[in-house]
Each structure stands twice: as structure tokens, then as C-alpha cells.
């Protein structure tokens, strides 16, 4: 694989991994694959768009150094992360929690399917079907070792790495993180051990939604915004989650990197328009060879 493809794969894979953390945690803790998770990425990206425009009236709108964006987008991304976390929690409160209470593992999946279409088309209704951009400035890729890379891409990689490390520390070092992992491992036992399940569920949606929003903004910075951006990443997200093992945050990140690299590497062979099919083939291979994933305990 050429160095440039490697870089493309890592860039793509890191955003997939970042988005997949929330999916793998809700999957394990609530027991259903949320088909609306991709839309949280889109919503995060699209929420940051008008907020950045608003904020640029207050903060200095000048781009930061060689980057294509300035402080307004940074502030907008943080606000969008909070709002998307709240959106994810609201969705659970209105829809999924009611269906969970009634029992049955698949009904929330159908509901998330409906929610996904409604959320995606709401974006299309408000912003229109055409792609949008945070900045119209063109970025020149500069040589960086064997790669050619834009300043934005370096920031995206750094932010992703920081967030992944942050999530890792949260899950491994804090009480909340241990409670979340315990609930993912065995909800009944966790409840007996005195863990506040409702609190864990609330925090999982908030964190998962916020991380999805961050991933969405990063895709928006390096690629573009479009109403289908999250939905197009849904299959890679699921492939990353299952490859990494459901419930494992590091697994989701590694899974995301593998999927991203596979998609980038196969580009010259089959054409980038078959990206979704490549993710699907990886997924199918995992299901046939090791359905519990790399770091998953349960099947």
C-alpha cells in the first residue's frame, strides 16, 4: 500500500472509529444496534454549521494559522457535541426507552430505522440536498515525510487521538466508566451491584452522541457535509463495532481503522464507489470467522 493510501485509510478509519465508540457502547448497554447512530454524526456536523456562523459574529473569525477554520468552528463543534448528546438522549427518552420497557429485542431496531430516516430527511428539509462546507478555502497539501497532508488533516488526526485517549481514560479510570463497562458486560449483575442503570444509560447517550457529533464535524472539515453523510458511514460503523467486539471502545477504534484502511486500499482495485461493499465484505468475513469480534466476549 502506498504511503498516501495509508494516510487516507487512517484518516477515514479514525473518524469511523470515533463515531463507532458511541454505537458500540449503546449496543452493549441497551442491547440493540442503533440504525440512527449515523444520523447523530450528520446532526452534529449540521448543527455546527449555523452555530459557527452565529459565533463568528462574537469571536474572531480569522482562520487559525494554516487551517481552514478558526475559533468559531471550534466553539460551534463543542456546542454541537452537547446538543447532539442531548438529541440522542431525547430520542431514547421519547422512543427507545418506551419500547425497551415493553420487552423484545428487535422492536427498538425497527424504531431506530424509522428514526434514522426521519432525522436524515429533517436535515434535507432544512438545509436542502446539496453538499455544504464549513469553509470554501482550498487547502494545499504539504509534504510531510512520505505523505502529502493538509493542515486540517493533521488536526483531525490529533483531535481524534485526543478524544479516543480521553474516552479510554474515562472508561478505565473513573467510577462512571467502570459502571458503564460493568453494565455493558452484564446489566443484571451491574444492577445488583448497586449501579444506577438509568444514570449509565443517560451518560452513554450523552457521550455517544457527543462523540458522533465530533466525528461528523471532522468529516465535515476534511470532506464535506451532506444529508446522507452519516447514513453512508452506517455500514462501516457497524462493521467496525462488530470487528472490534460489541461493547469494546478500543475495539471500535481499531475496527474503524481496519475498515478505513481496507476501504482505502481497495480503492485502486475496485474503485472508491464500492466502499460500502468493501465494508460489507469485511463484516461478512468477521461474522463467518470470529463473530464475537477481536475484543468481544459474548456472541
Amino acid at each position: 500500500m502506498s504511503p498516501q493510501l495509508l494516510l487516507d485509510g487512517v484518516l477515514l478509519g479514525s473518524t469511523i472509529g470515533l463515531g463507532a465508540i458511541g454505537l458500540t457502547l449503546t449496543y452493549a448497554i441497551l442491547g440493540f444496534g442503533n440504525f440512527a447512530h449515523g444520523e447523530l454524526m450528520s446532526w452534529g456536523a449540521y448543527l455546527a454549521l449555523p452555530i459557527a456562523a452565529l459565533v463568528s459574529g462574537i469571536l474572531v473569525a480569522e482562520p487559525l494559522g494554516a487551517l481552514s477554520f478558526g475559533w468559531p468552528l471550534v466553539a460551534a463543534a463543542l456546542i454541537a457535541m452537547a446538543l447532539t448528546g442531548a438529541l440522542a438522549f431525547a430520542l431514547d427518552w421519547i422512543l427507545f426507552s418506551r419500547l425497551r420497557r415493553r420487552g423484545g429485542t428487535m422492536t427498538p431496531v425497527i424504531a431506530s430505522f424509522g428514526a434514522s430516516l426521519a432525522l436524515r430527511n429533517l436535515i434535507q428539509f432544512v438545509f436542502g440536498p446539496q453538499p455544504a462546507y464549513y469553509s470554501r478555502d482550498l487547502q494545499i497539501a504539504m509534504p510531510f515525510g512520505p505523505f502529502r497532508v493538509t493542515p486540517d488533516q493533521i488536526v483531525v488526526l490529533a483531535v481524534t487521538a485526543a478524544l479516543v485517549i480521553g474516552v479510554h481514560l474515562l472508561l478505565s479510570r473513573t467510577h462512571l466508566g467502570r459502571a458503564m463497562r460493568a453494565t455493558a458486560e452484564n446489566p443484571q449483575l451491574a444492577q445488583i451491584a448497586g449501579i444506577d442503570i438509568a444514570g449509565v444509560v443517560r451518560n452513554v447517550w450523552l457521550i455517544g452522541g457527543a462523540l458522533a457529533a465530533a466525528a461528523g464535524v471532522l468529516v465535515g472539515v476534511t470532506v464535506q457535509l451532506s444529508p446522507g453523510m452519516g447514513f453512508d458511514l452506517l455500514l462501516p460503523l457497524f462493521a467496525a463495532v462488530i470487528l472490534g467486539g460489541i461493547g469494546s471502545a478500543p475495539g471500535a477504534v481499531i475496527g474503524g481503522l481496519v475498515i478505513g484502511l481496507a476501504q482505502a486500499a481497495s480503492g485502486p482495485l475496485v474503485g472508491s464507489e464500492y466502499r460500502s461493499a468493501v465494508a460489507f465484505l469485511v463484516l461478512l468475513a468477521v461474522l463467518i470467522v470470529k463473530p464475537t469480534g477481536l475484543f468481544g466476549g459474548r456472541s
Partner: protein
Amino acid sequence: MLDLATYAVFFLVTALGFTLICLGLNLQWGFTGLFNAGVAGFVAIGAYVSAILTTPESAQHLGGFGVPIAIGWLGGAAAAALTAAIVGVATLRLRSDYLAITTFGIAASLLAVAQNALRLTGGPFGIAFIPRTFAALSDRPALYDTVYLALMVALVGIVFVALERLVHGPWGRALKAIREDEMAAAALGKDPRRFRLEAFVMGSAIMGLAGAAEAHFVGFIAPDEFLPILTFQAWAMLIVGGSGNNRGAVLGSLVVWIAWSASGTIMRGLLPADLQVRGAALQIVLIGVLLAAMLVLRPRGLIGERTIVSRHITAERNGGVAAAPAADEPANS
């Protein structure tokens, strides 16, 4: 007046295509508890395979096999069944939601093939000149549409009666037993994997048949007809009508298709041309909310499943309704 009648017939043919899809989905979800998130993919396979088998040779796509239309339809259904068998063998042994993700993935991959494999599918231009089933009548559109409608009614009727006989027979009882308590059914010697695979393959074959029937009615197919929205429509129809009941599947497909078309017409009439695309998006939002609301407020749908074990046992017959919501699935499968 004639225009209205033509529209009504065209409308009904399309609706009956959805009815077929919905009956297939009901066999998978309603009776077996299998979540198929890639309905559009199986419909697309049926349409494309039948079209490729029967269309005259063309430089735009694969074709020129000169197969009779009836064989094309069977080929479409068989191809959908084969795809389902491969997916089913790989995933039905795993936890139930893996099937949802895999079917979602296969539909996305098939859509990518339909859009990009120019030599095979004609890419975004689709496949044109698909031979129509009653070509001799093609110079009399009204008669053609009416005869095709009769064919669709007959097709839906045959599938409906066959499914009713199946699900109310020993095979269907075993299916329900597995859905309700897999362990108990297995202890009685019913192999859950075999029954699930059979139901999944059969349901997908019906979807493939629906795709072929629709393709030969219109005479043209393109990837845009097999977007994920098609899967979503089929699900909305089944949930609204009431899963686990074939009458519910038929009713739901007609009711939702009428609501969908009516809201589309109203939206087109009210909105200026530049807002049409956004209006179409709003239409999907409304149907999405309808599906979610239905799941929360009326999970059994308009006509839900009836808890008759056998028609020979009459004790529960009077007003016997499902104790658990029909859209739900037991926790242990």
C-alpha cells in the same frame, strides 16, 4: 374520467407490488421474527435478474439471453432466494440483530453494483426495453394496464393463499413455536436454523418476484427505485397493517401506499417547484414519525396477530388477541 381510471389501475398495480413485498416481509418478521433491513436489495435482485434474462441484447448492459418472461420471473425469484440463502447460512446461527446489519449491508452493496457496474446493470441509466408481459396489448394502454392488474391480483391471491396454508399448517406452527420459545421447539425436534432459513429464503423469493413483476410492468428499471426508502416503506406497511397477520400485511400495504401517494400529491400541489425536493424529504419525515408512533402507541397495527394455536382448538377463538404485542419478539431469540 379515463385518465383517472388509468391512474387508478397504475396505482393499484404498484400497490399490489408492495403487497407482495409486504407478504414476504411478514413471513420473515411477522411469523419468524427475522429482521430484514435490506428488503430493497432483494427486490432489486429480482428486478435486475429478470430484466437481464429477458431483454434483447444491448451495448448498455448485460442481456440478450432471450429467455421467456415467465422464466425470467422465476429466475429473479430464484436469484433473490439464493442471495438470502447465502446471507442466511452465514448469519442465522448468530444473534438475531446480526441479520439486520448483514441484510442492510447486502442491500447497500447491491445498490453500489446497480449504480456502478455499467456493463452488468447499465449503471445509473438502468435497463430499458424490458419486454412487457402482454406485449400484444401494448398499443391499447388501458387494456394492458387492466390485464396486468388482473395478473397482479391473481399473483397476490396465489401467494396469499399459499402463505395462509403454510403458516396455519404444521410448518407455520413450528415457525411460531421457534419464534416464541426456541429451546422448547428444539427440544421437540424442530431444528430452529432450518425453519428460519426456509422462512427467510421463501420471503426473499417473494420479494424478488415482486421486483420482477414491477420491472416487466413499467418496462424500465434504474437504481433509484431500490434505495433504502423502499425497505422503509415495506416496514411501515407491515407495522401499520399488523405483523404476524397476512391480512394485516395486505391492508397495511394498501393503506400506507394510499397515504404516501396522497401526501406526495398534496405536497406537490402546495409547494413551489424549488421546494419540491425538500417537500419530498418532509414526506419521509412524516412517515418515519408515523412508524415510530405506531410502534409506541399501537404495536399490533391495524389488524394484529391472532393467538390461535390451531383451528381445531376453539377455546381461545372468541376475541383471542396476542398477549404480547405482535411487533415484539421474545427476549430469548
